[in-house]
């Protein structure tokens, strides 16, 4: 059985029940929600009227879920073009008096940091929550970071839930607190919380009856002129006292302490859950006092002081960087408290990734001097069976139009340029072209960086032909200024926009080239080639990559273009997963393809060079197309040198 890359049942058929839970007025009812869904329920309970987001793991499902009930609740919900715009729009709504929520992944906050560092100065009016989905371990991101540092930099409170139930409560509390302190509140939801499931107790829903109205005030003019931004900075410092005292008294701090303990555990978020289980596992739950923090920023100084003052040592449990550990050490040193503060960095000077249960056991062991019960070691199995545990690299789906684009591209490049080419990649499904069979991506950094990198290589006068390979959504998000830079500075390279009409990687949210917005109403269709022409790109060509001949010709022409400025190709064909789902909704059957066994020579072009996961080479050296996985793109039929692949009768 071959890859089944999409499961339409799980997404569409669960929605009804979820919608009922989200809209339910039964206060006190227990329902199971994911972290992302619980955040949405919290926003509904708090009367949020305006929500924005850009898709990205682990928090894509927040806006997706919200859209499903936005009509009933009169909530405006949009997929913004990038996280910066999402944050700006949500801030304006809040300044105009609507409670707002904006959700983004950790790297999204890097984008939105610029406006955030001004909105923290001006402040907002109605409650505003910035949900930041963090991805320690970088499971579905280009990197891992630790967004807590951005909370202390922006001097904004950052709450951190330990599970979905607490996430919902924190959203409600955070929005109310934001409105009180007139500042956005951050909520860090790490992957294990966002994608967690837990029974959540429903609360009351507020349905505020407000009209947006902007009350002009000079504080919204954030400018250095006349020393205003410095004064605003000073007043932000002043607000810290109010924030600190509110966090100090927040209901989400939890202390479990009898006074008999010698040691303690301090944590926030999911780390706390792991720590409590590890203590019970070791039978040391009575020997360690426990402090769960509501927020990594600001830290409750008095609470920490009281908690640590008569303990010999505390163990700090946290993901990625020793952020809490360093801050707590500083607080205790300032107060002259001699309690030692252990953390990951004492066991591993350069901690990375999520903290694990075993790591916490090791820390507890070291501090208490007690050996923890032995967990069955799997070292023998790992050694014996390592050869069987083959990797499972991510790949483009069966029928993916990107595969056709790369196939045509590789043929044209091999023929004309051989290996004299540099391929700058970008964020999206097409980055899997870095792997076999194509191996066509040499560099990949962050959103939109392909075009900026290509500008730099081209202007450095490298001998190789330079390519920037970017998806439609990433182009709209971050590629356009870089394209203008290329035209403006006459950088000569080839931009390839792989336009599949949706944000493929995160679950096929609509992109501006689709012509539908978040709630699937029709809107203006924005095409990358129109933007290219408008900014002065002289060579612009759009083509359908499922027609391999046409695609290869387009690459030949673009490679031959000598300037001025960049050449731009747009390979347009809808995401295969999206197209298959739409076809299913319309009740259409997909035209599948099949292999004529008498014509198949087993040459392996379709499997080795094209690599569609729907095609398998059988034992008898004949290719076979798995009917369940074929989406009917028909490209393999063009790839086969023996015309052995045909439409299924």
């Amino acid at each position, binding site marked *: 059985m071959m*890859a089944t890359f999409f499961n339409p049942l799980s997404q569409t*058929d669960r929605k009804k029940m979820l919608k009922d839970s989200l809209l339910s007025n039964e206060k006190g009812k227990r329902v199971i929600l994911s972290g992302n869904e619980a955040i949405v329920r919290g926003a509904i309970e708090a009367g949020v009227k305006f929500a924005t987001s850009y898709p990205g793991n682990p928090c894509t499902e927040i806006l997706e879920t919200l859209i499903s009930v936005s009509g009933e609740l009169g909530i405006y919900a949009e997929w913004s073009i990038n996280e910066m715009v999402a944050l700006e729009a949500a801030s304006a709504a809040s300044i105009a008096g609507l409670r707002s929520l904006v959700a983004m992944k950790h790297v999204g906050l890097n984008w939105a940091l610029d406006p955030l560092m001004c909105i923290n100065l001006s402040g907002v009016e109605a409650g505003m929550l910035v949900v930041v989905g963090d991805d320690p371990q970088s499971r579905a991101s280009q990197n891992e970071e630790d967004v807590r540092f951005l909370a202390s930099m922006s001097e904004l409170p950052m709450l951190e839930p330990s599970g979905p139930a607490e996430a919902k409560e924190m959203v409600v509390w955070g929005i109310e607190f934001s409105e009180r302190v007139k500042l956005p509140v951050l909520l860090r939801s790490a992957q294990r919380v966002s994608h967690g499931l837990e029974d959540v107790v429903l609360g009351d829903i507020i349905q505020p009856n407000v009209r947006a109205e902007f009350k002009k005030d000079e504080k919204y003019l954030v400018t250095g002129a006349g020393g205003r931004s410095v004064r605003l900075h000073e007043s932000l410092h002043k607000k810290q006292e109010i924030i600190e005292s509110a966090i100090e008294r927040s209901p989400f701090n939890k202390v479990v302490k009898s006074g008999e303990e010698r040691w303690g555990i301090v944590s926030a978020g999911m780390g706390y859950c792991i720590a409590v289980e590890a203590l019970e596992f070791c039978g040391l739950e009575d020997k360690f006092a426990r402090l769960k923090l509501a927020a990594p920023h600001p830290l409750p100084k008095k609470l920490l002081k009281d908690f640590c003052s008569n303990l010999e040592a505390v163990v700090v449990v946290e993901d990625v960087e020793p952020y809490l550990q360093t801050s707590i050490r500083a607080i205790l040193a300032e107060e002259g408290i001699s309690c030692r503060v252990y953390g990951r960095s004492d066991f591993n000077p350069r901690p990375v990734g999520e903290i694990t249960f075993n790591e916490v056991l090791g820390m507890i062991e070291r501090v208490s001097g007690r050996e923890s019960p032995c967990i069955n070691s799997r070292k023998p199995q790992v050694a*014996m069976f390592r050869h069987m545990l083959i990797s499972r690299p991510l790949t483009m789906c069966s029928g993916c139009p990107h595969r056709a684009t790369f196939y045509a591209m590789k043929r044209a490049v091999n023929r004309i340029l051989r290996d004299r080419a540099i391929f700058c990649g970008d964020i999206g499904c097409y980055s899997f072209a870095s792997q076999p069979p194509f191996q066509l991506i040499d560099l990949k950094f962050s959103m939109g960086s392909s075009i900026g990198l290509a500008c730099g290589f081209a202007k450095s006068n490298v001998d190789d032909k330079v390519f920037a390979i970017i998806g439609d959504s990433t182009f709209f998000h971050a590629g356009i200024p870089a394209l203008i830079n290329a035209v403006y500075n006459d950088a000569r390279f080839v931009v390839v926009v792989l336009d599949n009409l949706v944000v493929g990687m995160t679950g096929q949210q609509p992109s501006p080239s689709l012509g539908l917005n978040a709630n699937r109403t029709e809107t203006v269709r924005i095409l990358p080639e129109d933007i290219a022409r408008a900014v002065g790109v002289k060579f612009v060509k759009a083509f359908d990559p499922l027609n391999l001949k046409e695609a290869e010709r387009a690459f030949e022409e673009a490679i031959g273009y000598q300037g001025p400025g960049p050449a731009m190709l747009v390979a347009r064909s809808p995401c295969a997963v999206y197209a298959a789902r739409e076809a299913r909704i319309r009740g259409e059957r997909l035209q599948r393809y099949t292999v004529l066994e008498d014509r198949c020579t087993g040459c392996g072009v379709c499997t080795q060079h094209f690599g569609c996961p729907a095609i398998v080479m059988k034992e008898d050296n004949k290719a076979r197309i798995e009917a369940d996985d074929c989406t009917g793109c028909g490209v393999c039929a063009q790839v086969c040198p023996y015309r052995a692949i045909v439409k299924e009768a």
Partner: protein
Amino acid sequence: MPIPGDSQGGIAMGRVWSIIIAGVGGQGIVTTARILAESALASGYSVKATDIVGGAQRGGAVLSHVRFGNLVHSPIVPDGLADVVIGIEPLEALRSSIQYLRQDGTVVFNEEPVYPLTVLLKQQKYPPLEEIRSALLTITKNVFTLKASELARSAGSRLAAGSVLLGFMAAVSGIPIPKHNFHAAMEEVFTERVARVNIKAFELGFSKGLEAVNRLG
């Protein structure tokens, strides 16, 4: 002896059931975890679960942790402490069992592999099912396999393989969740048509499980 799957619930204080559901993106792992979580909640337990998903739609491995009991602290199953591993895909069953399954835990897995692209490109070799089974037998004697996708297809959709495996697991593992709560969870979570398919799939798996239990005596 209690009748498998007809348990009326109730587990010892402090006892937490830990279940790992492993497979490849698109196989319905997250949905299967949700059904299990809803069934446990309906049986009166506290439930915590979490998914480890990275690029789930593009052939990557997906893992769900589901834990329930009177009091569950953390959704994350510590290494070597899972009571049950449900593998919707054989290789992922092995991978997650080595990391998570406790000694003498139960592993139930679908015999139908999903080949990584590297296998199709002949860069890696997919291990034979027999080797996967013998590797698992070094951890536990409770290794069960079945053609879950095929059974699911006969119930109406190959995507219900997770429900087939849930049914089998309910029969062989001694999990303290009564059968009717699985049915109720499916009726709650799915639309009527899809619920019918999944309940049928669950029942097919359950009777296969009973057969396996009877064979073992």
